[in-house]
């Protein structure tokens, strides 16, 4: 593929180094928000054990902590991590250095500033009142601008590619780059900025946004990354390109119409159409399953805790998550499961079990490459894997059980309480795992900065010996 090109190929190390600055900022911030988000989740779930625990401090009350935790997981971790991974994948697939690399570097700072502003706003009660859109106007504008700047750099890098034919991941990731600004600006303009839509039209726009962001956008990113890294890590080709594209188009075509709950107080055509679309999601689920199984069958490796383990398990997690989404939309089940913890569990499985695990694997794979150094604590990678997997299981499965119990008891107030209390254990494990990532990234950045200072100092003190300093 690359040998066909007569021109001198850009070495991978050069490509990786060109991504270093923006990706470091994106990943470091993401790791920090992940720790904070999971910590806030733990704080929120303390309320299940002792309801009156935060009666004194409104900032940490369930309504605030839960919203802040969810937003930190998604806007704090998933989006910036995904953007960083996308930049690197686009640069690698194009076999060029990152184009306009100062843009994502600046944008990464803007993004994290936006998340900080949003976090403070939620904790002080200045929320918009719409789940997953709680950030106020100032924060939403920062996030929007930052995303567009990063997308410009990613698309410019894409435009520089030497191999004209597209790899399946290109489709998924390009669609993700286009879709986020679209849904985010629509939702913010119609819901948060001012109130041009009246009444229940607000809720419809909100359901549309939530489904397209949490389910579709995260699926596009997650599958795009899996379809890139899985063949790369196993040395096997993706089987096959057309299955992946079929999954892509059906996911886009049907997935974007899901999300309006069956019992919603809106005219019958809206939830019915949504249930129809959810049922059609069976098709992309089938296609993704075939791609994953066929591609994995070639790879006879067991590497539980390696980055390959993350990507394999994370990719497979898309299947149960999407199946639960379809099941919850089935008319006969939705009657029982709607408005229970079941829905929350599906969302958390999608974010933590699928999106986060894939992105964690990608970060652990990419960071040593862009820094051209191994991670300071390599054993943290498998440790975090096991903590995350057990954590997700211990968090999501009890929530699912609690949801089913709640639905069958017809919302008896104390149904599933035991399982809710148990789910906190999973969150604690996830929090410990995220601390390992944070330690690794921060130590690595610190070492790199010290080395950088030393280089500069050496250059100033003894310019002639510059070349001997290890950078």
């Amino acid at each position: 593929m690359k040998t066909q090109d007569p021109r001198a190929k850009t070495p991978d190390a050069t490509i990786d180094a060109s991504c270093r600055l923006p990706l470091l900022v994106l990943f470091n911030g993401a790791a920090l928000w992940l720790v904070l988000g999971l910590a806030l989740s733990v704080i929120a779930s303390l309320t299940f054990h002792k309801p009156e625990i935060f009666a004194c401090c409104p900032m940490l009350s369930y309504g605030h902590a839960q919203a802040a935790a969810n937003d930190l997981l998604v806007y704090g971790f998933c989006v910036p991590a995904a953007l960083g991974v996308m930049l690197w994948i686009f640069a690698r697939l194009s076999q060029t250095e990152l184009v306009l690399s100062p843009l994502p570097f600046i944008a990464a700072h803007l993004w994290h500033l936006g998340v900080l502003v949003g976090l403070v706003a939620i904790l002080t009660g200045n929320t918009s009142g719409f789940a997953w859109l709680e950030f106020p106007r100032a924060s939403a504008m920062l996030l929007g601008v930052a995303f567009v700047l990063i997308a410009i750099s990613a698309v410019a890098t894409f435009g520089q590619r030497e191999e004209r034919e597209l790899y399946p991941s290109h489709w998924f990731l390009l669609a993700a780059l286009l879709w986020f600004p679209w849904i985010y600006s629509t939702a913010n303009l119609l819901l948060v900025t001012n109130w041009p839509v009246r009444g229940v039209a607000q809720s419809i726009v909100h359901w549309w946004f939530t489904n397209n962001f949490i389910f579709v956008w995260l699926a596009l990113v997650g599958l795009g990354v899996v379809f890139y890294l899985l063949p790369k890590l196993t040395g096997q080709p993706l089987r096959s390109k057309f299955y992946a594209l079929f999954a892509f188009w059906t996911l886009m075509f049907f997935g974007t119409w899901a999300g309006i709950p069956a019992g919603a107080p809106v005219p019958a055509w809206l939830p019915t159409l949504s249930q129809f679309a959810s049922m059609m999601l069976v098709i992309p689920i089938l296609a993704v399953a075939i791609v994953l199984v066929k591609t994995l069958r070639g790879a006879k490796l067991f590497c539980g805790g390696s980055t390959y383990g993350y990507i394999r398990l994370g990719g497979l997690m898309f299947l149960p998550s999407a199946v639960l989404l379809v099941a919850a939309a089935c008319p006969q089940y939705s009657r029982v499961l709607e408005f229970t913890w079941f829905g929350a569990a599906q969302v958390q499985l999608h974010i933590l079990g699928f999106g986060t695990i894939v992105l964690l694997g990608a970060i652990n794979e990419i960071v040593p490459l862009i820094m051209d150094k191994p991670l300071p604590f390599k054993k943290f990678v498998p440790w975090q894997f096991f903590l995350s997997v057990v954590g997700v299981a211990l968090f999501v499965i009890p929530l699912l059980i609690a949801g089913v119990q709640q639905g069958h008891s017809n919302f008896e107030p104390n149904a599933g309480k035991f399982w809710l209390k148990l789910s906190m254990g999973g969150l604690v494990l996830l929090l410990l795992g995220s601390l390992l990532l944070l330690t690794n990234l921060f130590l690595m950045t610190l070492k790199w900065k010290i080395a950088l200072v030393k280089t500069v100092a050496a250059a100033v003190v003894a310019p002639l010996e510059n070349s001997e300093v290890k950078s």
Partner: protein
Amino acid sequence: MKSGFSIFLAILLTLGGSWIGFVVAPTMQLGTAKLTTALVTGDTWPQQRTGEATLGQQIYRANGCVACHTMQLRQDGVSFEVVLTSAGKINPTAVSNLISTLTLTGLNKEAADIAADKISAVGGKTETHLTATGADISNYHAVRRSVAADYLYDAPVQLGSLRAGPDLANIGARQPVAAVHLQHLYAPSSVTAKSAMPSYKFLFEVRKQINGVASPDALNLPAEFATAAGYEVVPKPEAKQLVAYLLSLRADAPLYEAPFTPATTKP
């Protein structure tokens, strides 16, 4: 396939479909909704909130109440009941004999029409009453499902997606006493034993009684939740606004979209 632009266009069209279907179309269909008229009474619906309740909605939003409470009632079906309004003058005995042989409650539309026709054939006069049925309806003492018209004055509309606590769409009709709501916000388990709801003590003020006399606003708490002697718990304005908002939440007027026969018109 090889051009980024054609892919961009194809993606744009696919995504644009869902944007038009679920953003533009519903906004045009429901975003221009106006006040409607309730059946039977002819009152306009929804009723305008008081200023205090409108402020209370912002307290509800700021505290993230939507994380645990939905505000949307579902309805599984309708049940019809045929009620005799007058036995008529022709043959009252035949009417009462006929009635004793018929099932008049829990009918579907066709069965109700048949029963009504049978009764009118012997000279009796009937009315057909309509009752909403479903788990939410019986669970939350509601009279009908929630419909779009109920939320016309809401900004933001906070339907919620999880019932960690009860549904609040009709809470103003279900529990119309403000004092109960205030006490529940201050100490939930003093109203509902083993309540899972957090306490919202920060919406209240504990202060010294003036001259040892409780102020009219002070909560009347059970002994185990009460403050020290000589002190009293008074709601801050935020708590009062929040309760005013809760009392304004009702889904109890019969509408064309969700008809039912109100209890007051039943003889």
